[in-house]
């Protein structure tokens, strides 16, 4: 029997080299992908940011020709933002909103993952949780706010609860799905090799459900932002929600848009961070 090649790049067929099939499969896959069009990384970045710049430019031109009470434009927003950062209102509001969001979303995500893992693995947990989760998920969460205020008051605990409530459902639903969809073949492999239940979680269930968990969290980011603003509007008014209400009440549209844009940026940044974390946690899904 011949020895194996040492170099990664050695794809020369000796006798019948299994590596040769690897290379050709890779090529075929690439060729298939190229059929539509294979953009380089640089071109993708150019398209992504150039289109964004054009969008902002159109907004700028249009916005300058509209009554400033009704609409605004990017440069005016930036000028207002500079003012609001300088006098400290922006930082205070962002801190208030950000801390409520961070605590509430963390609680909601952790609870969602835990409950989802349980419901995915145990049919009893699934049967117990299935109807309550669908019922609460379908419920317009805003309808619960008067009750939540009764329970938690108007302060931060109520806001944190609302954010957690908004975040919980997409995470729990996706995590449950992820665990349920673990390949039965691989479960059989863990049984065949006499794995303990703990090791099944470590080797199979958690890594297999990871992409689903991340999808859940991605959806939860948007819902968390909705939750925090709803909370700030309907309980003790505070944070970025407060800035939106007070500035729009005094018809300062450009200043109203500063907290709105801040919220979008929080969403964009969180989604980007999540993508980085996911790639770091799931190296096997990265392209070869």
């Amino acid at each position: 029997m011949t020895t194996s090649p040492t170099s990664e790049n050695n794809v020369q067929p000796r006798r019948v080299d299994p590596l040769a099939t690897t290379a050709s499969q890779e090529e075929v896959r690439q060729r298939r992908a190229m059929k539509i069009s294979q953009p380089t990384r640089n071109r993708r970045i150019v398209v992504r940011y150039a289109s964004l710049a054009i969008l902002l430019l159109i907004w700028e031109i249009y916005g300058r020709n509209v009554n400033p009470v009704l609409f605004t434009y990017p440069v005016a927003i930036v000028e207002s933002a500079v003012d609001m950062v300088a006098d400290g209102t922006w930082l205070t509001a962002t801190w208030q909103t950000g801390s409520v969001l961070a605590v509430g979303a963390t609680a909601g995500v952790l609870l969602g993952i835990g409950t989802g893992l349980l419901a995915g693995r145990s049919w009893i947990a699934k049967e117990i949780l299935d109807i309550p989760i669908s019922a609460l998920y379908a419920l317009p969460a805003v309808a619960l706010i008067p009750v939540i205020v009764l329970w938690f008051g108007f302060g931060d605990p109520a806001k944190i609860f609302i954010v957690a409530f908004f975040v919980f459902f997409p995470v729990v639903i996706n995590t449950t799905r992820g665990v349920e969809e673990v390949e039965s073949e691989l479960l059989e492999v863990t049984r065949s090799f006499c794995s303990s239940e703990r090791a099944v979680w470590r080797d199979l269930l958690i890594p297999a459900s990871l992409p689903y968990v991340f999808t859940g969290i991605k959806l939860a980011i948007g819902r968390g932002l909705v939750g925090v603003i709803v909370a700030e509007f309907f309980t003790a008014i505070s944070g970025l929600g407060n800035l939106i209400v007070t500035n729009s009440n005094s018809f300062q549209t450009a200043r109203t848009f500063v907290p709105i844009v801040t919220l979008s940026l929080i969403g964009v940044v969180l989604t980007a961070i999540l993508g980085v974390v996911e790639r770091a946690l799931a190296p096997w899904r990265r392209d070869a």
Partner: protein
Amino acid sequence: MTFKNTCIIDGLSLSVDDDEFVSIVGTSGCGKTTFLRALGGLLPNSARIVRTELHGSALQAPEPRVAMVFQHFGLFPWKTVEENILYGVRVQGRTEPRERMERLLEVMHLGHARKKYPRQLSGGMKQRTGIARALVLEPELLLLDEPLSAVDAITREVMQQEVIELIKAEPRTALLVTHDLDEAIIMSDRIVVLGGPPAHVVLDIRSPIERPRTLETVRSHPEYLGLRRRLWGALESGRAAA
């Protein structure tokens, strides 16, 4: 035993000698894979009906002394080749047999791919990893469930040769389920033809072709065509009976 109210295996009894390589062939759907899974303890409710005895003690659930190679490879996508091979060792809390693993990596031509993930491998390489994962455990009984049926024809022949070499180097009791007659003839000391369903033994013969077998010696062996014809006849009659 029954599965979804269909009787799949009915009164099947098989005893295998130590270090014997036995192939079970049969047409698809005859219950040969079910039989193998029951032997490996993977069908939990079958223990009362299927009694597997290994060196005098009964086997009811999967045990560390039995290792299985799966048709679908059964590799973990998030584990590298190396981690997949060591899976059984780690799960069973054994000390890592470094030297043994290095030798398997070399014999199976996996050395250069040890840090790769399954999705970067061809079918043949995946099953080499699956076979290494079972063999690294030094099982008393090796169960092979159509291990090469998802691999292309050329790689299949190369890997049949590799498995023969491995078994020659360290004899092992093995049961191979396959629907490939040539594979059965090349690999085994004894061939059992199943008919069905319900699965029953149609033919149970010792191969007239002695070890060491290679693709060339087997195909040019005077008994080869006769054996193949007998097996084929048995397969046909088994199917007709069903």
